[in-house]
């Protein structure tokens, strides 16, 4: 489980120079991005996955919690995806059952559950990354902009937080305060903004020396206005790249938490929960593992390629 891949990308980003004049950069970057076929394909795949999560409920013939009593207890034989229905197995045909992806071990419709799990996992990924990005960027920009003693203190705090065995703390939080999505966000959010803060600070340090910032200071603009209007927009390139790398990490975190049995509550589900249940049923029916694993792997693949593509596009050290 590579929860930490983003850390290094972050380091690289932290060392790279801040972006040049915005307009030409964005146009350039767009052109570069669309030349990268893998990245474009990833964007399309992610679009499809998002569409699956959004419009899946319209296609699903069952709710996520209805049990198909006729299949319960015989999932091994009759619970497979309905398009595999045939004379040599007991799977009811699609026209009867509508279990496009088969059922889970409790004979609930796996299609509906995968749709719902996709929603939760994407939400965890995007919201988690968003929290990290917003908090981290502001924290880093403030620290870097004011510099001096404040910078020193703020960065020491980051150092301290980084030495906390956070996975353990997250487990503790979930045990102590009970399992909930909110707690999951708080727990993941607590730690994931740290890298972002370091990157943002590094970039801000050099942005602060730029003419347009000096001009703003000279004309007496309020420091927080400078940070929000001048520094943060110039950090956006780095932030976007980093965010695309954070999303898959968040999703992987969530799956690990689900594996530990501390994820979302029934009847809700997530990719991690579905995969974990599927792994337990590996020998009874492989589809219960393969269906959610497919969505999980394909989406994470795409996020990684997208992140690589964006970095290549936005990184001035183009090769």
């Amino acid at each position, binding site marked *: 489980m590579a929860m930490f*891949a983003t850390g290094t990308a972050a380091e690289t980003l932290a060392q790279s120079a801040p972006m040049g004049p915005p307009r030409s950069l964005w146009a350039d970057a767009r052109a570069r991005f669309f030349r990268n076929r893998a990245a474009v394909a990833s964007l399309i795949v992610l679009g499809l996955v998002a569409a699956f999560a959004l419009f899946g409920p319209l296609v699903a013939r069952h709710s996520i919690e209805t049990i198909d009593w006729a299949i319960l207890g015989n999932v091994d034989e009759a619970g497979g995806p309905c398009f595999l229905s045939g004379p040599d197995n007991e799977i009811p045909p699609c026209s009867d059952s509508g279990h496009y992806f088969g059922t889970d071990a409790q004979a609930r419709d796996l299609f509906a559950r995968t749709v719902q799990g996709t929603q939760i996992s994407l939400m965890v990924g995007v919201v988690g990354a968003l929290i990290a990005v917003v908090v981290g960027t502001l924290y880093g920009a403030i620290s870097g902009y004011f510099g001096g003693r404040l910078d020193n203190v703020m960065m020491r705090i980051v150092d301290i937080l980084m*030495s906390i065995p956070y996975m353990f703390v997250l487990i503790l939080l979930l045990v102590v305060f009970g399992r909930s999505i909110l707690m999951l966000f708080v727990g993941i959010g607590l730690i994931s903004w740290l890298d972002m803060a370091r990157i943002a600070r590094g970039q801000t340090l050099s942005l602060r020396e730029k003419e347009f910032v000096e001009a703003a200071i000279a004309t007496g603009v309020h420091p927080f206005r400078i940070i929000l209007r001048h520094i943060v927009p110039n950090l956006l390139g780095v932030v976007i790249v980093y965010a695309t790398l954070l999303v898959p990490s968040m999703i992987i975190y969530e799956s690990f938490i689900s594996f530990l049995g501390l994820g979302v509550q029934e009847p809700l589900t997530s990719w991690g929960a579905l995969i974990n249940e599927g792994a337990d049923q590996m020998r009874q029916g492989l589809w219960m593992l393969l269906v959610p694993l497919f969505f999980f792997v394909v989406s994470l693949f795409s996020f990684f390629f997208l992140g690589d593509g964006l970095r290549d596009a936005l990184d001035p050290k183009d090769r």
Partner: protein
Amino acid sequence: MFAYILRRLLLAIPVLLILVVVTFALMYAAPGSPFASERAVPAAVIANIERAYGLDRPFIVQIGSYIWNVVVHFDFGPSFQYRDQDVNDLIEQGFPVTLTYGFWSFVVAVIVGGALGIAAAIRHNTWLDYLAVGVSIGAQVLPNFVLAPILVLVFTLWLGWLPGGGWQGGQIEYVILPVIALSTSFMASIARIARASMLEVMTSNFIRTARAKGLPGRTIVFRHALKPALLPVLSYLGPAFVGMITGSVVIDLYFSTGGIGQFFVASALNRDYGVMMGITVLLGALTILFNLVVDILYAWIDPKIRY
């Protein structure tokens, strides 16, 4: 340099203290007790047990005596769950196991991952490159709680080559599956990082100069490009190390290796306050130490960095 190391080590003290206090407070806030069971235990019995463990004293006394015992006697106290062992016993028994398979996973991840990444970079945009990128992203996203049971199914049940778990003092056949399961995703990350940085180095000016001088490709790669290309890999080792410790939860659960990983979850679930505190302190100290070692190594390899 020495002053820097000293400062970092001094910083570790408040960090660990904060960690101890926060964990202790969380423990107090947690519902449930280490001594609850299906059957309601009479209050007098609970009172006896709490007295035996000193849980009847005020919070501040408990935490104070805990810190005192750890600092002065290096005694992490009793386990609230395993009454035949105390926390020192449990860590002494489990930690070497975790370190052993952790170390080999580390070695495998760095060597195989590094080689794969560099090979992919040298053969940039060939089938080897695409394969390496595909395989490494795939390996990175395949959760090890899926990989571990597959390994046992294949190598233990179907092929019968390797035992499906246990440790037996670290005999080689017991170490192989845990190492594969733990190292795969880190190997993949290292391969990706190594590839990216190698690509960057290969297009840099000093390599172009070397090429222009007509040096053979092998010399360029091994003499000149390798060292700078591996720097980012080095900085990944800190997070990778922490990740491996976290990942050891899965290894211990699936392979029954008897390492300390399983205590992360089990101690919290059982409300085993003693083990929970011991593990927190150990992990915190290790994380700080390892980050420091990586930073020192970094400075040693890259002379441009000064502390």
